[in-house]
């Protein structure tokens, strides 16, 4: 997309990611965990971006299901793909952190489990689109909608069941020195997400245009 802001934003994002490691290194050492704690900067940022991707996909799906506007479907599928990839990042960096922090690779607590379930739902969404045959864009949109509605229930259930993950309040309780790098990384991730989303939606848009051209050719 030849959006005039795109290239400058891309440069800014690249610069932020280039600088991020320095910021992270400069941040204070966490007392108990040492170096491994620094994964948190990317892990939590990815986590926030995952929810952004999920929201984008969910909203796109709802819009597509009820208005059948093609751009809504493009938003839905792009968000879902990004959610799948970012989810993978979250689910890999999390255990790396957890092994050091809690001594185990995985724990069945609310946040982990609902992230895993949400990731599975988006993968199911992508599988359906790939293997479901014609009309699967509409069906997948319903899956995304149900998936979104599902997340609070999963969260609540597992929360009542057990909880070990640091609660959301870990952010305010961050040492002052850590807050800067943290929000920097969050911003970098969200920028990257937005850029990739735009590119991905553009790709779908071009695919649709190609289909139209094929059809016009037959006329």
């Amino acid at each position, binding site marked *: 997309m030849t959006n005039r802001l795109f290239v400058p934003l891309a440069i800014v994002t690249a610069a932020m990611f280039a600088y991020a490691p320095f910021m992270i290194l400069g941040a204070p050492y966490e007392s108990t965990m040492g170096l491994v704690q620094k994964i948190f900067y990317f892990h939590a940022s990815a986590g926030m971006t995952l929810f952004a991707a999920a929201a984008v996909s969910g909203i796109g799906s709802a819009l597509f*299901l009820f208005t059948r506007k093609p751009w809504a479907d493009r938003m839905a599928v792009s968000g879902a793909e990004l959610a799948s990839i970012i989810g993978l990042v979250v689910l890999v960096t999390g255990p790396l952190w957890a092994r050091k922090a809690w001594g185990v690779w995985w724990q069945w607590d609310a946040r982990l489990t609902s992230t895993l379930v949400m990731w599975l*739902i988006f993968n*199911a969404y992508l*599988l*359906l689109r790939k293997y479901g*045959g014609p*009309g699967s864009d509409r069906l997948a949109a*319903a899956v995304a*909608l149900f998936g979104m509605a599902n997340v609070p229930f999963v969260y609540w*259930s597992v929360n009542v069941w057990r909880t070990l993950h640091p609660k959301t309040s870990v952010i305010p309780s961050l040492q002052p020195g850590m807050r800067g790098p943290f929000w920097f990384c969050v911003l970098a991730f969200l920028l990257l997400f937005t850029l990739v989303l735009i590119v991905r939606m553009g790709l779908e848009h071009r695919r649709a245009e190609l289909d139209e051209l094929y059809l016009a050719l037959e006329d």
Partner: protein
Amino acid sequence: MRRFVEAVWLVTRKDLLVEARTKEIFLTTLFFALSCVLVFAFGFVREGRAVGDAAAGILWIAIAFSGTLALGRAFERERQGETLRALLIAPIDRPALYLGKLLGILILLAAVEVVVVPLVALMFQAALFDHALLMLGLLATGTIGFAAVGTLFAAMLVRARSRDVMLPVLLYPITVPVIIAGVRGTAALLQAEVDVPMARAWLSMLVAFDVVFITIALWTFEPVMTE
């Protein structure tokens, strides 16, 4: 409104009539559920007693697996003869069609559970009937939640490719809260110091889940089924 209820009942009655003739889905689902219980028993029974909360887990997994099978089979039936199309062409409100099919599935699953639940209680010496009302509530709301989502998904997959494997792939992640609530609620009733308030909390969550998801299903059935 009356017309709506009549339509729902028409669809359900037809499904029950067809099933009563052949009993095919009921019997195959029942025996599948029993096989599930057996297979899981080998995994979780040690020295004649179920390990920990295994009985609760086994029960709900059996319900989930056999429920998925029943859903698939029920809609496969509508695929032969394309009768689902005939119903979509008919002047039945789409939500009524959804509810009619849901009710039919629920009655079928209830019939299966009537056999499987006492059997699990027997085989695992699980005191499932000490708090019968609560247990019934958990089973009812859990099955409703599972079937509510399952009916929509099975209906929408009727003409999709790979529908046999897609149904469980789509259904299980979304019904995770139902399974958690069902298992934990049942376990709360089975443990040494029975935790009734806990079981009640799970029951409330299931009720909320059912209300939310049946509403979403009624809302999305029409757009999802229209090509």
